């Protein structure tokens, strides 16, 4: 009987000389990380450092406080809830379409009520990934133009009350909100159509980037001595409260 001379089954061993198939894609990812990290730590990209827009106090306004870093100075021209001379200032960069801003709005409302004249809440327009941010930000500026600071805050409060966020709000309803807070509808519509506040809103985005904001909400708590505590995200009430307490102690 002839015995078949079979070759033994072999298993191929990978050698080091073979190029690793994952090397290129992973290298790309790592390169992307370094690029992102560079942008992250340099303050948000090419516009960083050029964001100090509207730094001059408005005519008739009093500069409240000099702050450190690249955050634009707080002046009477800002949208402020509370007293501009309050020892602690909470500068918030907000996107009306961001659900976390909606959540954080309640936190800051509670905090400002609780701390009274010890804190001032400053609203600035922040940018994230949503498409309706500029249009809605401009609408709040129109509300401020037509009805002053109170109308501005009433408009923002109402937007957060009714907006489904995540670009779910119908821009056709912006005048309805204006009417709801007691503004003249036709004047508001004319203001919106002029588009005159869109650049103003976008300038706030640059300020947000310069302040280290990466997404919304981004909040900078400014202590009486100008020391800044930049908080990223909708942190819980405890974190905000502890930060304000800390800031209140920073007097020298």
């Amino acid at each position: 009987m002839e015995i078949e001379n079979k070759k033994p089954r072999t298993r191929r061993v990978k050698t080091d000389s073979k190029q690793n198939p994952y090397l290129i894609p992973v290298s790309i990812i790592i390169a992307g990380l370094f690029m992102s990290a560079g942008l992250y730590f340099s303050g948000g990209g090419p516009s960083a450092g050029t964001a100090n827009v509207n730094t001059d106090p408005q005519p008739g306004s009093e500069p409240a406080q000099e702050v450190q870093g690249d955050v634009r100075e707080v002046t009477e021209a800002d949208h402020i809830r509370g007293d501009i001379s309050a020892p602690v200032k909470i500068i918030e960069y907000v996107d009306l379409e961001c659900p976390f801003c909606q959540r954080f709005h309640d936190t800051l409302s509670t905090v400002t009520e609780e701390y009274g004249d010890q804190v001032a809440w400053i609203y600035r327009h922040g940018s994230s990934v949503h498409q309706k941010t500029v249009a809605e930000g401009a609408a709040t500026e129109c509300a401020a133009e037509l009805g002053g600071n109170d109308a501005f805050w009433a408009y923002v409060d109402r937007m957060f009350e009714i907006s489904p966020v995540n670009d779910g709000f119908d821009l056709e309803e912006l005048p309805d909100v204006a009417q709801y807070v007691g503004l003249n509808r036709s004047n508001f519509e004319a203001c919106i159509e002029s588009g005159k506040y869109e650049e103003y809103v976008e300038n706030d985005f640059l300020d947000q980037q310069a302040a280290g904001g990466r997404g919304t909400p981004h909040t900078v708590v400014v202590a009486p001595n100008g020391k800044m505590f930049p908080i990223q995200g909708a942190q819980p009430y405890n974190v905000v409260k502890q930060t304000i307490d800390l800031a209140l102690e920073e007097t020298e």
Partner: protein
Amino acid sequence: MFRAFKKVFSSTIYLLTTLLVAGIVYIIFIIFPNFSFLGSVFISSASAVKKATILFSLIGGAGTSNSALSVFIVMAISILFAVNLAMLVFVAQKNRATVIADKKKNVLGMLGGSVLGILGIGCGACGSLILTPLAISIGATGFLAVLPFGGSEFGFLGIALFMFSMYSLSKKINDPLICPVE
């Protein structure tokens, strides 16, 4: 794969170290967006107790400042990272001579998984922490807006990469210690 898990994690040291590493990675991921905030807190004149309280509040606040999806990704990446590391060390101890090539592959897999995981961290609706400023800088926020999970997709890719790495390591762990025939 479960057989490999049993081999690795039947050792108490491996199990405890894995849990510790997972916890540390999770904390780093959660406080990552607020490193500069913590920096400001830690150089302030506050007492050590106050500083520690803020740190713990920040860690505890993961649920309010992130979407549920984002927290899930962070947890998954942290656990997978630690498990991968444990398996990699186990394989390296099992046979140092023959696993150099595979170790390289798995280390790259872990790095890739971690990087993609980091890209996926952030507000699921308001944009990824890293991707959003990058997209704003290059005027590509529209790209993120069309992603159904606003950038969290990268987190899923990271998880997939870790799973692949784990699968590859578990095969190595289950392999008998023999010199294969060429």
